[in-house]
């Protein structure tokens, strides 16, 4: 930054090339440049950090397990301001986190964005809750048109193995077992796991879902 300011056309040609020992005019001009630069940097830092904290959350506001992200106080009247801003921006009306928990995944377990032209295997074990559901959306939260009219699988309809575990195939073309179609359009995908009335709660009364209970998302192949 120092050299940039020094080379700037705004600085009057200094009699001596030292930054801090110029004539008065050069000094005040330099101060102005510094001030503007400081303000621009502050604006970028302030807005950028706010956006990051509202969009991605921090360990204080969110639980992150694998690809899943869940806001701890979503919908809660006592929620912090980051969570409030996140919920307002989402356009949703989530149930308070003492009644329901929501987890969103936009990537697979390796951090690669979920895409409609890939196939994924979601494997999971039963969740300790009254009702839960895995639903598939486009990146804006819209349901994806498909010929079988299948947009989600919930705890009541999922085909499961004898031990309660399940597999959901996320794919463009029909798959055996539980098939969640990714649709004909090449686009990014979002998964939402909604868990109503979790039976365990943490000390704050927030529904508790053990991290290892959240389903794994494995990418199998891409077109």
């Amino acid at each position: 930054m120092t050299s940039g300011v020094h080379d700037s056309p705004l600085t009057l040609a200094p009699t001596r090339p030292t930054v801090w020992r110029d004539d008065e005019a050069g000094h005040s001009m330099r101060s102005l440049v510094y001030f503007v630069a400081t303000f621009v940097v502050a604006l970028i830092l302030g807005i950028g950090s706010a956006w990051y904290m509202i969009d991605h959350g921090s360990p204080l506001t969110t639980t992150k397990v694998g690809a899943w992200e869940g806001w701890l106080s979503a919908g809660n009247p006592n929620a912090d301001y980051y969570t409030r801003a996140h919920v307002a921006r989402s356009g949703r009306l989530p149930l308070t986190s003492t009644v329901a928990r929501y987890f969103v995944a936009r990537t697979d377990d390796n951090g690669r964005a979920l895409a409609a032209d890939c196939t994924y295997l979601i494997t999971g074990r039963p969740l300790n809750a009254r009702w839960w559901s895995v639903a598939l959306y486009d990146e804006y939260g819209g349901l994806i048109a498909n010929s079988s009219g299948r947009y989600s699988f919930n705890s009541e309809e999922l085909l499961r193995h004898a031990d309660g575990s399940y597999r959901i195939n996320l794919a463009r073309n029909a798959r055996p077992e539980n098939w969640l179609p990714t649709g004909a359009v090449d686009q990014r995908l979002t998964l939402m796991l909604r868990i109503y009335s979790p039976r365990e709660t943490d000390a704050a009364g927030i529904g508790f879902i053990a991290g290892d209970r959240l389903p794994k998302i494995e990418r199998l192949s891409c077109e």
Partner: protein
Amino acid sequence: MRMRLPGLFIALGLVLAGLIHIVAVLALPSLAPKNGFSRFAALGPVNTVIQIPPAAPGQQPMPMMAPDVRYAFCRFDLSNGPVRLSARITDELLLIALYTPGAENFYSVVGADVKRPEVELIIITADQSVEEAGVDSPESVDNVIVVNSPVSEGIALLRLPLAGPSRADAAEQALKATSCGPYSRSG
């Protein structure tokens, strides 16, 4: 003195960045015009139950609506007195949740916790009381719940998660039996 100038600018920059951060976070909820509340408010009048068609591609008032949940809502306006919301509990999965315009879910009740076939919520503001509205002691009736609302206008959102793919029709019928309107002794 002059040697400390960069330090001053860095300090000033950090303080400014912090202030901008705080203002941005606090201002965002009111700058988000399409929050959940305003999306529903656009769908119909106050103090009546509006059923939302099953979520389908291109047919969702809110993003990320559950395709396997049936929704109905009542936007309540308490400025002319308390509002009564009654719902038939056909399913223990039924969830009734009350929201402020800021999307805070300040009250919720689950069907499984109501040991009656019907539940009645009387929504009042802090400066109202149900006595004034002509009720002697609604607390004596088990299925009547008086809910204090922190706002005079909000949304009651009913969710009925489907207990299986064949349950959609029954769920929609159950939500049709919901009523919402100004509270009165006769009603």
